[in-house]
């Protein structure tokens, strides 16, 4: 493969451009991290750009001392974990029959799934329905509406379809039923797609904002995103625990920055473990689905 000079320049320019874009994409994030680690006076004097100035952990100390933030954090952590497990179970249970030609309702249901994907119901009748089944001001609204997503269902069904029939037939002859088949053979061989969908469901559950905004009034059940939103928009909330002494080394801005990063940390921690799966899984869904 002999590359001409022009080719090398071409690839060089594209590489340079992409590196530049990746750096630019990280700039806003880095600047918020720096703000959260800088002192009040450094921030007020417009000194902080990409590197913390007058490094201090005071904003972070203040943030991790806020019990209301931790309450929301653990609520969101548990709804995310429970919701993801339920969602995978629900999606697998539904996708498995849909992947079987002997399941007579399959084609009708698949059509319904596609219709549900294309026609989104207006938000008001959705709100009234969900309220009607008793999920208003009920923390279960953070979980139940998210445990089945048509798009994810199609990804999993597509994945299940590729299992060889011979293996299943052999298992059936041994007296293995559909339930055992699914849990003992199919799911253990589906780790890639399970990890991908766990990431998709988990991110939605962790990041959800509209459902709690619509359905939750009781501040006890405010999940992390709503709490963060309060911190970002309402200075009286974020400064509620601040002492009135003049020697504060933080201000609203450094605290907001710390809050924002606080909510990102779990995603950044989980991301590398799932990264190797999700691209592969997303491809399964997009190419064939």
């Amino acid at each position, binding site marked *: 493969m002999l590359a001409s000079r022009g080719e090398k320049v071409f690839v060089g320019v594209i590489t340079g451009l992409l590196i530049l874009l990746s750096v630019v994409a990280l700039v806003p994030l880095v600047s918020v991290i720096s703000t959260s680690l800088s002192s009040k006076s450094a921030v007020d004097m417009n000194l902080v750009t990409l590197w913390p100035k007058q490094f201090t952990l005071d904003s972070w100390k203040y943030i991790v001392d806020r019990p209301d933030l931790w309450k929301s954090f653990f609520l969101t952590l548990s709804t995310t974990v429970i919701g993801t497990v339920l969602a995978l179970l629900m999606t697998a249970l539904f996708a498995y029959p849909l992947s079987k030609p002997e399941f007579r309702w399959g084609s009708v249901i698949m059509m319904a799934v596609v219709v549900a994907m294309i*026609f989104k119901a207006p938000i*008001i009748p959705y709100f009234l329905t969900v309220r009607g089944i008793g999920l208003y001001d009920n923390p279960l609204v953070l979980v139940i509406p998210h445990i089945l997503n048509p798009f994810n269902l199609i990804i999993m069904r597509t994945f299940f379809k590729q299992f060889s029939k011979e293996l299943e037939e052999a298992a059936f002859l041994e007296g293995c039923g559909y339930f055992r088949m699914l849990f003992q053979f199919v799911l253990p061989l589906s780790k890639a797609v399970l990890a991908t969908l766990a990431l998709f469901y988990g991110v939605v559950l962790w990041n959800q904002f509209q459902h709690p905004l619509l359905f939750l009034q009781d501040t006890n059940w405010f999940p992390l995103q709503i709490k963060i939103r309060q911190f970002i928009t309402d200075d009286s909330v974020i400064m509620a625990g601040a002492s009135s002494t003049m020697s504060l080394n933080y201000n609203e801005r450094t605290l907001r920055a710390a809050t924002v990063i606080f909510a990102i940390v779990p995603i950044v921690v989980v991301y590398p473990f799932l990264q190797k799966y999700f691209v592969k899984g997303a491809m399964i869904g997009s190419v064939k689905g």
Partner: protein
Amino acid sequence: MKSIASHQMKLYWPLYVMAIPGIIFLIVFKFIPLAGAVIAFKDYSVFQGFIDSPWVGFKHFETLLQHPDFLNVFSNTLLLGLFKLTIVFPVPVLLALMINEIRKSALKKGIQTALYIPHFLSWVIVGGILFDFFSLSGMFNIILGWFGAEPVLAMQESAYFRPIYVLASIWKDAGWGTVVYMAAISAIDPQLYESAMIDGASRIRQIRHITFPILLPTVLVLFLLDIGNFLDLGFDQVYNLLTPMTYNVGDILDTYVFRTGIQQGQYSFATAVGLFQSVIGFIMVYTFNKLSNKVSDGGLW
């Protein structure tokens, strides 16, 4: 016939049992709300519900079209939707074509990771980051200061709302959007490139005559899907970027429905707005699908 059916059930009943929770979910969370959209033609009352509330025909649609707010909200939505289709949509295609030219896999992976990360942040967080970035002592104003420009509170300024909406959309999702295209590119037969190289085709020509044409059907399908969601700008996104000072340009159908429907309790009126939005989306998909069937063989159906 009946004996065959019962024999089927005897053997296959576990499949039907497995499907029941999913079917219930679809009915409750998708189809009842979809059917509930009829309240756009009724005067919904909480006590009478979807079925028994009295019919009023097109009353709410008439109110809607005469409402001065609605015209403004509708044109805001239309404009942002247009920007989304024309400016935001092509970016992942370009990015994917560019990323594909990088052969060093470690570098490629690093670039992809950096571009994917924003996708996993919520709009609350992205809003928080942007409000910080554009604050008076934030990085944007520091950089403006280097050039001697006056500081601006861009998030609170109407003139900046649309550019920020577009840039935020690109920042958050353009990187992730490449995943689908990269998948399509990786499915291209390498022999095509080999024979092109033997013929002396340059990299740019290979992109123009091999990669791009093969990518085009995928682009078209995604474009059609996007057109259907043309007026669906993302409630979370707009809600978290909006300030009272940017209402005149940033108030869209989704935020309007939230205000009139959820906060003021005008359920039927707000449903009419939502239905209007869905119908326009459907007409757009239908029209463009017809067009793309005529122009090429591609299309959604």
